[in-house]
């Protein structure tokens, strides 16, 4: 076994020759106090939004947010706004670009071994936390892992991923938000990350989050405090929205480009009722850009997670046919309303936390739930979002967000899960 590890390390020395064809490499970062700068990675131009040429580098880029961002959620985003912010603050070992290609993040090199049952990768040279502490393999593996894969620290900067099944491709789980490396910051509401930008409680107010980089540039995440996101468009360089009215308004602004992002969210109807129901025409029910839910859904087969075929009895729904949804999600509200109209139920709003408690308890008739179309770790996502009781999950509609981008300011690219990020 040791010989295999040694050979793998030797392979890393000649990484260009030994790396997987989808190998991503990054340039050496320059550690700085307060944050470790991410490497300048090769960017898949296919994933870069077509918003015109960038003519001048802008030191401060302003991004509008239409949803709340809670640092306590970091590094696992719970909405589009958190996804956008966390993507720039926290790093996973790799990211999957919009075409599914692995790109280096904390891991700058990796090698496949043992017929694809083991993957070994080296952490980026100079990778460090915002406070200057170096990122070690132990920081990556501690407390992490999941069904089907095991993480172990081989050396200070070398991590191995052992898979239950062999894989020809880099395990997508390495790009999962759950593997983002953080550590607690006793004097800050934000966990300390390793991303190119850093934020602390001192740079965070109710109106905006200022994230700084070692290069001296700043991302300003500005909240739509007035409640009307159109007010933001005059002052921001990027706004991601699912509101088609806002999209249509932005399309009338000459400085803005409107770009549809990937279909990244599927709304499902979760109920204890057996059999499921097909609901037609739901895309008319929502004001977001929507289509009939399509494709193979990751939640259909969770056997590898050990949660399929749960022995827990389905909870009994009683009383009114209440259909729960998260109050802050307008698309969920509209879908719940339509389902209520079709099933003679009652659409019932809940806060995000209460909704999560309700769906886990399963005492009500049904739940309209937003699921990511893609997840790097199905088991973690299922554990977080789906009930443990045997539910019938009916896909309703797919939705996608729209990026409203100021022309000529910055380049933006999307990941496979639809997350938008600044191209370095």
């Amino acid at each position: 076994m040791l010989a295999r590890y040694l050979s793998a390390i030797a392979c890393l020395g000649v990484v260009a020759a030994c790396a997987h064809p989808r190998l991503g490499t990054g340039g050496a970062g320059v550690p700085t106090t307060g944050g470790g700068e991410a490497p300048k990675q090769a960017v898949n131009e296919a994933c870069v939004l077509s918003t015109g040429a960038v003519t001048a580098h802008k030191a401060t880029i302003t991004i509008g947010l239409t949803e709340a961002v809670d640092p306590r959620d970091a590094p696992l985003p719970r909405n589009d706004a958190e996804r956008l912010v966390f993507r720039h603050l926290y790093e996973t070992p790799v990211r999957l670009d919009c075409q599914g290609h692995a790109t280096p993040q904390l891991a700058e090199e990796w090698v496949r071994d043992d017929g694809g049952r083991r993957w070994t990768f080296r952490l980026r040279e100079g990778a460090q936390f915002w406070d200057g502490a170096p990122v070690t393999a132990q920081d990556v593996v501690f407390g992490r892992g999941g069904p089907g894969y095991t993480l172990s620290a081989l050396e200070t900067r070398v991590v191995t991923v052992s898979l239950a099944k062999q894989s020809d491709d880099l395990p997508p789980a390495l790009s999962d938000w759950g593997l983002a490396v953080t550590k607690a910051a006793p004097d800050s509401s934000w966990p300390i990350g390793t991303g190119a930008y850093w934020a602390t409680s001192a740079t965070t107010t109710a109106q905006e989050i200022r994230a700084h980089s070692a290069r001296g540039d700043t991302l300003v995440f500005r909240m739509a405090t007035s409640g009307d996101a159109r007010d933001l468009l005059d002052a921001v360089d990027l706004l991601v929205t699912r509101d088609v009215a806002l999209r249509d308004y932005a399309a009338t602004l000459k400085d803005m480009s409107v770009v549809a992002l990937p279909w990244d969210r599927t709304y499902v109807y979760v109920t204890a009722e057996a059999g499921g129901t097909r609901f037609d025409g739901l895309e008319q029910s929502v004001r977001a850009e929507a289509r009939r839910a399509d494709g193979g859904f990751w939640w259909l087969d969770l056997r590898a997670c050990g949660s399929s075929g749960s022995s827990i009895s389905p909870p009994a729904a009683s009383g009114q046919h209440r259909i729960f949804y998260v109050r802050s999600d307008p698309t969920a509200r509209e879908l719940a309303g339509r389902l209520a109209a079709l099933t003679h139920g009652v659409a019932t709003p809940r806060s995000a936390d209460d909704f999560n408690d309700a769906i886990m308890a399963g005492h009500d008739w049904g739940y309209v739930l937003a699921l990511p179309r893609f997840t790097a770790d199905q088991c973690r996502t299922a554990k977080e979002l789906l009930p443990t009781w045997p539910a019938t999950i009916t896909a309703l509609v797919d939705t996608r967000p729209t990026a409203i981008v100021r022309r000529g300011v910055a380049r933006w690219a999307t990941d496979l899960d639809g997350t938008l990020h600044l191209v370095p």
Partner: protein
Amino acid sequence: MSLRTRLLSAFGVVVLIPLLVFGLGIRREMAGRVTGEVQRRVDALVGVINADIARENDRIAPRLAALKSAILADNRLYSDVVHAQDRGYVLDYAGSAMHLAGLDFLQIQDGEGRVVSSGHFRNEFDRLGPQARGLTLVRANAAEGPFLALVTSDSVRVGSQTLRLIGGVAVDSAFLSRLARDPELGVALLLPDSSLADSNAFVVGERRLPYVDAVDGPGREEQARLVVTRSSAMMTALERNVNLWFAAAVLVAALVALLVAGWLSTRISQPVEAGMRDMERRIAIGDLARQVNHDVKNGLAPLRNVFRHLSQVARDKPADLAQVFTERQGTVESSINYLETLAANYAKLSPQPERKATDVNAVVRETVAGSSVVRTKLTDGLPLVSADALVLRRIIENLVSNAVDSLDGKSGTVTVTTERGSGVVRIAVADSGRGMSKAELDRAFNDFYTTKPGGTGLGLSIVRRLVLDSSGSLNVETEPGKGSTFVIELPAQ
């Protein structure tokens, strides 16, 4: 049962029964007036409800008319409806229109009654909506559950389609509160097969409304009722209060009546009872007099016969007079003995005085002891008098009693004074009462004369006789309004 008690009972019955009847009558009249007043208020409230509902209809109808104009002027809506293009715009149309029109309920239905656009529930499209003819109460669905709305309808022709507009306002607790303008009356909505939720309330008025339950479909027209309610608890409390006050009033009136009746019965019964006692006393005396008369006559009759016989003999046969006298002497003596025996027997009816040396001051003290009205001025060292102490006490008691009575219950003084006289002991009983006139004084010592209610009229007559029996004298000094002084002199030993 005494006369006073009988009178009191009679007064009670005579006063209390009318009082009770009067009170019941007042209570009944008051209840009738209260009921009438409440009914007038109920009628007024029903009128207000009718006016408010009519006003709501008058408010909704123009808004629907304005909406018709807006629909006809909206080319995009026309295009989307006629050519079935952007359904999203149609679906959103009613929501915006509803808010702009200030309505809570708005459905745009097609010719079949299917919802084309809904303002209160965007995603209920394609369902069959309610058919409202005129002002109708509709139970409709919203995403968050059913709600009630008061709606009316209108229609507009767009291309070849006729769209029906059904708009209205929500009927919720605030709506009902606005109708309930009388704080003591409530307004509730009773749907078919429902009853009042408040078991303490009862219906006193109502307004019927056409009602359609469109939660599970277009529904059919039934009748709902807007009812005016009153709290039975409030009425119970009011009734209890009225009864309480009524009972208190009757009780107080009864007490007052009983007091008045008691006073009146006393005022009436006292002189009557005194008169009756006087009459009984006079009857007893009359009986005694008749008996004495009879007995004396019985004793005198033989004497009269003997005397007539002797007179006849003396006239006709004077020579036989001595012989006849001798013959009849026994009869005379027998009659005399009878009369003496009779006198002795009558004498036994009154106690015989036992005269002996008596201390006047001691007798006076014993007589007036315990009286708070009578004062004494007794001279020490008085000689004893020869008199019966009981007789002397009776004399003083009579005089003191008369003196106290003469005060007529007013403040005044009665004073008993003793002093030594020339060979006599003088006892004076003086009062500051009403005194006597000359005419009254002249008759004061006559038997059966009295000025006191219930008096026998024998008191002073007896006093004078007892004083004379004791070898004493009695004098009176009196003046009307200033009082009287009776002075007795008894010979000292």
